[in-house]
Every structure is written in C-alpha cells, then in structure tokens.
C-alpha cells in the first residue's frame, strides 16, 4: 500500500543541514495495522507526513498504491487514498458543524452533492456520531472530535488511514473510543492503518510495531517480539506495557514465564497457569 525507497528528509541548508529521516526502506502491506513508535522529536511525524505527500522527500521515493508522491498531477489522488488524522482535534476542523466538516474533503474533490450526502451519513454512522451531525465541534469531547476527524477522512473513501498521535491530547476514555474505532476500521472494513503513537498499550493492539529513533527504524516486528526486548525499547526513550515489564522483571529473578506477554489477559493466564 505504502512503500518508501531510500527515503531521506533533510532540514536546513548546507552546514546546518541535518537528516530527520535517513535512507529509509519500508513497505506497509495493504490491510495491515502498523504502529509507529518513537519519542518526541524522533522524526515519526515527519515520516507520516511523507505518506500522503504533505512533505516531499529530499531524497528517494515514496509510493502510495504505486503512485509516486512527488508526481504533482497525482497529489489529490494520493491524498484521498491515504487520509490523515492529526494530533490536535481543535486545529484540524474547518467547519462550524459536524456534518459540514465531514463534507469538506469530498467537496474539495468535486464529488456530486447527492453522493457527498450519502458519504457523510455513512461515515458518521461508521464512527457512531450520527446523532451529533448538526452539533458544533466546540461542544464535543476530545474523543468525539477525533472520531469526527476520522469520519472526515473516511469521506474521501481512502484505502489507508494515517493517524499522527491521535490520542495524545485525550483522556483515557477518549483514547479508548478512538482506538476502538481504529481497530474496527482495520478488522471489519479492511482499512490499512498506520498509527503513530507513544502509548505502548495502543501499539500492542497492532499487527506490526515499528520503533523509530533518530530518523531510522531500530525495530520492526510483531508487538510481542518488539516488547519482549524490554531493554532495547527503553533505550530509545520509550516504555513497554506494565505487564511486559513485570514479566521481564520476574524472568530476571529466574521465574519461568513466557517472554512475549503484552497484555493483562495473557499475563494473568501465564501467572495463573504456574500458580494453580
């Protein structure tokens, strides 16, 4: 779905020049759910902005569904294939009413009015916000705003949705709402999802975790395999889920537990198994 070839991104000129992304090769499969982890300033947001041509590579290529993002004639096609949701829910809303917000993208694409109406209704339904169609965004909670932002992107009928720290500014229940919506899109609608985050519990829900540090991929595997390397993850300024940390600590004490535990359920099962 998304492919980068020797992608690099540089900021600044000549002597001040430094690379935010270094010679990156990455392939995101269609229908997959990938989490990109990295501390603030690791370059993960910059990377995400290359996936739909908001930023163009200083070196190398990015392909979305086979289309080169540096091809100017294709840019709207690319952006509608790879929709993007941002961190701050307040700063990505244009319209003063929810349904107008969702209509914004298809309007830009010149979609027929009757079809826009159908898409708006369907997308609000998907994120379960139908009853707020006529509400002002400023009256919604953070989680609701982000669900509207997701609907606003879905209205372009993308194949892939990229979320740049969509939960960083939300409270726990808002975070849950958003993650549940994202998972549902991936599982039931077959949408390709790229989730950029620094919450480990969220990354544990993905099929694949990429740890990004100083412009490079330092780890790229299933969540189980990534988190079981507790020290390596911590060295990049990140955390592992608490239960993974606990199991890791217990294993160090010589207690025989599987090393690839990443959620509460698995952890309870494993401990129970050995204690009963």
């Amino acid at each position, binding site marked *: 779905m998304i492919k980068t070839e020797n992608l690099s991104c540089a900021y600044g000129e000549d002597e001040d020049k430094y690379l935010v992304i270094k010679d990156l090769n990455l392939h995101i499969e269609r229908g997959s759910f990938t989490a990109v982890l990295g501390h603030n300033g690791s370059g993960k947001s910059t990377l995400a*902005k290359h996936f*739909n041509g*908001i930023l163009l590579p200083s070196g190398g290529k990015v392909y979305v569904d086979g289309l080169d993002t540096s091809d100017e004639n294709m840019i*709207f096609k690319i*952006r*509608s294939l790879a*929709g*993007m949701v*941002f961190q*701050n829910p*307040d*700063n*990505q*809303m*244009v*319209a*003063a*009413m929810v*349904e*107008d917000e969702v*209509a*914004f*993208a*298809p*309007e*830009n*694409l*010149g*979609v*027929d*009015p009757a079809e*826009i*109406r159908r898409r*708006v209704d369907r997308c609000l339904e998907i994120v379960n916000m139908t009853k707020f169609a*006529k509400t*002002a*965004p*400023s009256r919604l909670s953070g989680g609701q705003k982000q669900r509207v932002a997701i609907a*606003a*992107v879905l209205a*372009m009928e993308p194949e892939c949705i990229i979320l740049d720290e969509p939960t960083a500014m939300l409270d726990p229940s808002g975070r849950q709402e958003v993650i549940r919506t994202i998972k549902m899109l991936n599982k039931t609608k077959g949408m390709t999802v790229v989730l950029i985050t620094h919450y480990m519990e969220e990354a544990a829900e993905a099929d694949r975790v990429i740890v990004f540090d100083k412009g490079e991929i330092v780890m790229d595997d299933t969540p189980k395999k990534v988190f079981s390397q507790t020290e390596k993850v911590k060295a990049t300024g990140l955390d592992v889920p608490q239960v993974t940390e606990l199991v890791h600590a217990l294993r160090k004490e010589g207690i025989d537990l599987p090393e690839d535990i990443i959620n509460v359920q698995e952890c309870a099962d494993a401990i129970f198994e050995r204690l009963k």
Partner: protein
Amino acid sequence: MIKDITIGQYIAGNSPIHKMDARIKILCAFYFIVLLFVIRNPVQYAVITLFIAFMVKLSGVALKFILRGLKPMLFILLFTVIINIFMTPGEPIFELDIFSWTLSITKEGVVTGIYMLLRLIYLVIGTSILTLTTSPLMLTDGIEKILSPFRVIKVPAHEIAMMMTIAIRFIPTLAEEADKIMKAQTARGADFESGSIMRRAKAMIPLLVPLFVSAFRRADELAVAMDARCYHGGKNRTRMKQMKMSRYDIYAGIVFFVLSAILAIAMIAF
C-alpha cells in the same frame, strides 16, 4: 465569561425562516436595514415593530436569546441616544447650566434619540435573526454566491467566504483559550483590572502574546489538515448543501413587497 459570545451561533430549527435560501435571506436582511433607515414617522415605526415581532415569532428562536445579542451593544446604544438627545437643535424642553455651558434637551432630540435607538435595536435583532437561523456554512456560502458575480472585477468571493467560515469556527476555541491564559497569568499575580488605561493596556501583553502565538500555530496546523483533505481553493469544488429556492423564498418576497407598500402608504398618508 467570554465563552458565551453569541456571534456565529446558530440555532437549528424548522421554521419557514430556517428553510429560506441563504442568499435570499441575506438580501432580505439588507433590504430590511435599508428600510430601517428610510422610515421616519411613528406609524412607519409601528409597522416595522409589528413586522419584527412577527419575524421573531416566526423564527421560533427564544426572544431571550435574541436580546442577549444586544447586551454587548449597550454602551453604543446609550451613547447614540445621549448624543442625539443633546445635539439635535430645536425647541428646548429642558435646560441645564454647567458653568458657561448650556446643555439643552430638545423635543426633536428626544424624538430622534428614540428613533435612533429603535433603529439600532431592530438592526441588531434583524441581523441576529439572520445569523441565528442560518448555519454559518450556509451564510458564508450565501455570501460567496452573492459576491461571485463580482469575481470578474477580481473580488475573491470563495476566499472571503472560506476565511469567514474558519473565523466563525475558531471564535469559541480562541475565546476559551484567552480565558485559560488569563487565568494562568492571574495565578502568577498579573492584574488585568486595575490601574490607568496605559497600565491596563500594558497588562494585556501577557495575554495577547501567547494568544497570537497560539493562533498562528493553530493556523499552521489547520492549513496542513486542509491540504491533507485535498483543499485547493474554490476551483472545481462542489457543495453538499445545494442552495435551492423554495416557496418560502417566494413568500418572503411577497411579505417584503407588502411591507414596502404599507410603509410607502404610511409615508404619504401621515
């Protein structure tokens, strides 16, 4: 609190006024304002008063809500009345000597003062009915459509409308932010309320600088988010909500025609 500004607020509803085409509604509002400034006798004022009362009733919006829009205007209203009362020449009904000055209230002054007051109040109520019954998007769309013939002379109709939409969208967000920053600075001992005008103006710096910085940051992020959703100006853009004239617009035409006729008769007869 600043959060409760009514500008740009829209109250959804199903009244005939809600159902009117935004373009026609804007033109009607304009025409109404023109009427307000041509009428000059008490009978005409009575007719207009009846008319506006009828419109408020028809819109289904609570009168309390409409009147709230007048609150921030209070100072301007009072000022206009006072200026008119004292500055209109004519037959004095009351005189006040202050040192070598004679302030006189004239009969004409009182009458013009009252007329002016009514005009301004009706103007606010009339425009409030427009903004309260028209969703901001429809309103800006209407303005865009009305302005679009002027594109030939390089009036950027779409851009103006887009700017208005975004401004309306961000008023509550920025008002809330201003409130927050003000509290944070007050907690650090800042004083926004006392001192001379100069001191107070200076005291606003800790509020205004962060507010501007944040507005720019928001604008920046918004631009990227709009880009990501393929925004590229008004070219080839479609709209979900099409503006269609309906029978209500024809009714509105008839109502305004009758109103004009009555006012004209009142002008000649009295």
